[in-house]
């Protein structure tokens, strides 16, 4: 299944983008492929959220912050590569010229380098999660309290990034990017390459999450969700495990942000605040927690639904999203994957009634 989906994403869709004539029904437009690349970037973030929420049972409402930090790191690099092609012809980003900033702030300087930007996009969220998580988990803040604190974090980050004094473009964020590593971002070829890189990153992220979950450490995470007290009295330090999974999820969110920016062409504080962070939770809930595949299905599915619905009924989308969350939580607590399991279970039951097969005991999560 993993290889089949990988094959479709990595080869079939790009080939359908390149080969068939533009008016053929088989043709996947540049626009569609680019959109899909964005959804797959979100899916990487959703994997991290599933690790921490689905498996370890820690609800983080601040994943948007880590996503935003990753995205801004890449965005800053892209701003600097514009150079004097900008509207004002200055070497400084346009918004600095408006704000009468005459010299590049010191923290922008490392972002001239592409690899430094990518590294920062992964490591800054990781360090942030490390410090924040250390303080929170050591003080045994959990459950709804952790959720509220992370939500406050999202609000705080939104406020900080909105200010012009932060020198990150304020409300308008970073945009108007021209090139990445010398390739024009407006070229379909560049976008196709970005799509392929995103698919590869998603595959790698999925494999890593699977590996974690299959290890004994993965079972410790589930054990923390089931009975943290027992974990503590079995000689494990739950705080260390929580910190680990929080940092991994922050890095995956940062990676998603890095991949998002060059494909979408803009990053503003609106993408990292309270609402987007909540929406990310909805993706995982809809797809089905503690399955990993569900996180991907949810992220792609909800965003696909969003792009269809916002085209036809732009003002209805928030209601639809809220309704979806309520319906899923009340009626399908295990999301799409849970429904799929039920359906499969029904078929298996019917099949089992015919021949006398060996009973399968218990179910694994």
């Amino acid at each position, binding site marked *: 299944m993993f290889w089949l989906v990988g094959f479709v994403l990595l080869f079939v869709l790009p080939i359908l983008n390149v080969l068939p004539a533009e008016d053929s029904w088989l043709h996947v437009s540049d626009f569609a492929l680019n959109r899909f690349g964005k959804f797959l970037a979100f899916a990487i973030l959703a994997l991290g959220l599933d690790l921490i929420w689905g498996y370890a049972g820690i609800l983080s409402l601040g994943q948007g912050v880590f996503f935003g930090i990753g995205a801004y790191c890449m965005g800053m690099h892209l701003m600097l590569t514009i150079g004097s092609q900008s509207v004002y012809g200055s070497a400084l980003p346009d918004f600095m010229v408006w704000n009468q900033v005459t010299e590049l702030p010191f923290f922008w300087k490392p972002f001239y380098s592409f690899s430094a930007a990518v590294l920062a996009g992964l490591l800054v969220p990781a360090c942030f999660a490390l410090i924040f998580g250390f303080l929170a988990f050591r003080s045994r803040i959990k459950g709804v309290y952790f959720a509220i604190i992370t939500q406050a974090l999202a609000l705080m980050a939104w406020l900080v990034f909105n200010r012009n004094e932060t020198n990150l473009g304020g409300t308008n964020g970073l945009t108007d990017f021209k090139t990445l590593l010398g390739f024009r971002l407006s070229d379909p070829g560049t976008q196709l390459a970005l799509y392929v890189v995103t698919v590869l990153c998603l595959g790698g992220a999925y494999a890593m999450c699977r590996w*974690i979950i299959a*290890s*004994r*450490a993965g*079972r*410790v995470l*589930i*054990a923390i*969700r*089931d*009975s943290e*007290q*027992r*974990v*503590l*009295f*079995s*000689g*494990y*330090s739950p705080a*260390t*495990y929580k910190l*680990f999974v929080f940092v991994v999820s922050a890095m995956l969110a940062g990676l998603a942000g890095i991949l998002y920016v060059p494909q979408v062409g803009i990053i503003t504080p609106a993408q990292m605040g309270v609402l987007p962070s909540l929406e990310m939770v909805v993706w995982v809930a809809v797809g089905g927690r503690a399955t990993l595949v569900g996180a991907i299905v949810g992220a792609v599915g909800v965003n696909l639904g969003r792009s269809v619905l916002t085209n036809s009924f732009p003002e209805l989308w928030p209601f639809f999203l809220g309704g979806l969350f309520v319906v899923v939580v009340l009626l399908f607590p295990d999301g799409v994957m849970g429904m799929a399991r039920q359906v499969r279970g029904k078929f298996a039951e019917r099949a089992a009634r015919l021949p006398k097969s060996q009973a399968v*005991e*218990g*179910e*694994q*999560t």
Partner: protein
Amino acid sequence: MTEHGSIIYLEGVTVDYDGFKALNNLNFIVNHRELRVVIGPNGAGKTTLLDVISGKTKPAAGRVIFGKDRDLMGMREYEITQLGIGRKFQAPSIYGNLSVWENLDLSLSRPSKGIFATLRGISTAAEREEIDRTLETIGLQEQVRKRAGSLSHGQKQWLEIGMVILQDPELLLVDEPVAGMTDEETEQTGRLLQSLAEKHAIIVIEHDMEFVRQIARIVTVLHEGTVICEGTVEKVQADDRVREIYLGRQKVAHG
């Protein structure tokens, strides 16, 4: 009873919850391979005693010495666990979404329980054997692949006892193991604890006097955070103060 012969030694331990002294200048010693039952009315400080030993509660005053000279004051719960003190909680505390095997596998004593060791770790043949032996001890061989959450109440209690045994503790703390069990399950649990006492020191907190008579050798009676009597079941039952504060009320039912 010297300090050096004991597995756990508490001296002058006081736990203060905003003025309420859950433990009041408590002295308490258990020797190696002893099965000790602690009884006492509600609020006597029985569970707090276990909390102090296992590191869940930090006392305001006193000393807690494990084995020869290991001071437990200020240590974290998982560090104390790794030293060799296992704890079975009153309500079954197991991992409902993992299988019986996985529950036991996670509890097994290992050199490192850090994140990087568990990311790479696989079970060795010796470890599997040990888990199998424990399964036999607690009588859950048939349920090994089952989700632990689907076990009966008694089975969950045994599973947790098995998980604690696998930590290979020198001292086992067991809080009301037979609460909510059927008579048959209670008796099996009693036999299980007695067989475990051959290898480990065990402290059992219990309410059920029937069960206390079945397993106890030495009983400690707690009242208002201090030990008021200690000795065999007969001696304790004959003690006037004990009759007055605890057994007296309970004994009415037995006539």
